[in-house]
């Protein structure tokens, strides 16, 4: 006997499964189809079929397994009937022979191998451009439509479609393998994956242009990806570091802008409204991330975020600890931007005069010349020192270099206060 289930309930279950299981379903299907486009089509069909099947039969016990079985069967059917259709791209290379039909059917109730790591490593292969890596990760791992990926990066849908098609063509034609890299290669390859996830997060956390400071969709996708990687690689301290960093940074989201969308600096944020769940999870992960010595870049950045997250107030922040962590960070990642952040922390540990001196010491860094945050940091220390004329000039300079609307409004407000 079949029960008819409310369509809204079923639609919600399918949407939820899409969010949680898309990567799993697609990754397992790619191994059978050995063709990204065909696998995507089959996975999409499976989700479409779920809408009607689940309405008739109820939501299955393990939606991911159900969807994967359906998608893989479709892929096998398509391949069987394909002999007449000439394929335009060669099949993907994978280590092992593709699973046989019986195997796919037998896996229905049992363990379907988790191929998500293969999928992620293929999307973030170093032979692809960073732009292509990011686009493929959103499209294939997160299951976003091309239109959604295009919107995330403020390019036209046609441009994004061309970028994704080109990347897929390179994967097939250059034979980028669908495989988990060897143990000695894995750390570098995971490093590239983490950079993609981090880039997604920072793009979402402070949108480079546009009216809104935060692109929530991108932030959530990057946290999902971080969690997925942590499930797949539970002993990797770099993965722990990245997930900790995004969680701790995101824990402040409710307080970063006020009711009318104006930027609120860390110093003035209402710490009682920080997300205590994300902070607890992030702090625990920092412990795991710092287990390896020397600590990696994301682990140290996360540790800095953890010091802020646990400080009762701006005044009671352990700035010396933060400066020490930045020193460690500069050791593993010599970046002028990190040096600037360290200089700012010095200003809070040892006073605005020391901070200004530290910022000015970086004046020759060519990378900081066009960097709005450098001018803003100078302006802030000058303001705190009461050197208001110089502060105004520095705020003007910062404004020239800042494009995000919320950040611009913040700088303009500071300028008004100095008049």
């Amino acid at each position: 006997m079949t029960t008819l289930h409310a369509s809204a309930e079923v639609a919600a279950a399918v949407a939820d499964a899409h969010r949680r299981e898309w990567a799993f379903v697609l990754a397992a299907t790619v191994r059978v189809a050995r063709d990204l486009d065909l696998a995507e089509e089959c996975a999409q069909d499976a989700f479409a079929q779920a809408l009607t099947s689940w309405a008739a039969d109820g939501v299955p016990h393990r939606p991911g397994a159900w969807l994967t079985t359906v998608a893989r069967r479709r892929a096998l059917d398509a391949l069987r009937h394909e002999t007449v259709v000439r394929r335009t791209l060669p099949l993907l290379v994978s280590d092992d022979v593709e699973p046989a039909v019986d195997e796919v059917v037998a896996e229905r109730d049992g363990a379907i191998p988790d191929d998500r790591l293969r999928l992620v490593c293929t999307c973030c292969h170093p032979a692809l451009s960073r732009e292509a890596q990011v686009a493929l990760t959103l499209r294939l791992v997160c299951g976003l439509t091309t239109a959604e990926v295009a919107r995330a990066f403020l390019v036209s849908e046609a441009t994004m479609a061309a970028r994704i098609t080109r990347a897929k063509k390179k994967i097939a034609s250059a034979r980028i393998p669908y495989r988990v890299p060897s143990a000695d290669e894995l750390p570098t390859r995971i490093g590239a994956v983490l950079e993609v996830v981090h880039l997604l997060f920072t793009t979402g956390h402070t949108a480079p242009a546009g009216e809104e400071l935060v692109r929530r969709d991108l932030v959530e996708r990057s946290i999902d990806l971080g969690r997925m990687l942590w499930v797949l690689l539970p002993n990797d301290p770099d993965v722990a570091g990245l997930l900790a960093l995004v969680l701790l940074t995101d824990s402040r989201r409710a307080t970063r802008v006020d009711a009318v969308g104006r930027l609120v600096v860390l110093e003035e944020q209402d710490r009682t409204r920080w997300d205590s769940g994300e902070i607890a999870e992030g702090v625990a992960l920092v412990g795991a991330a710092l287990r390896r010595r020397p600590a990696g870049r994301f682990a140290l950045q996360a540790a800095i975020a953890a010091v802020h997250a646990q400080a009762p107030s701006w005044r009671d922040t352990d700035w010396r600890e933060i400066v020490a962590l930045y020193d460690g960070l500069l050791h593993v990642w010599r970046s002028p931007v990190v040096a600037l952040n360290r200089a700012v922390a010095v200003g809070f540990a040892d006073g605005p005069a020391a901070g200004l001196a530290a910022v000015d010491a970086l004046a020759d860094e060519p990378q900081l010349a066009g960097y709005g945050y450098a001018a803003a940091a100078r302006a802030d220390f000058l303001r705190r020192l009461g050197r208001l004329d110089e502060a105004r000039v520095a705020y003007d300079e910062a404004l020239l270099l800042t494009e995000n609307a919320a950040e611009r409004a913040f700088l303009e407000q500071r300028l008004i206060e100095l008049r």
Partner: protein
Amino acid sequence: MAQYLVLIYGDEKALADSGPELWQQLHKGHVEFGQAHEKALAGGNALESTATATSIRRNDDGSQTVTDGPFAETKEALGGYYLIEAKDLDEAIAIAKDIPTPFGGVEVRPVQVIDMSN
């Protein structure tokens, strides 16, 4: 298995300016590379310098112009190539990394498979 053409690029001037010691070392490096990857190698050659190159371009009106020099003037010029066989790009990259390239690097290009069956 697939074939990849590995193009070796380098700064010709730096190579020309270097002494016989480096030449010997380079020669030895290629011999060792050849021995280490004997099974994967399907061919390869060093090229004479770009000073010996001749380019032929098709003009808009369909005529052709022959000029002295390489097709594209770059600091790092094509100096040689290997044709290798590898099962995928990762393997091709691993092999290509063993090629001695004191003044430049290599480009790995999959050889197109043209299906003549239809």
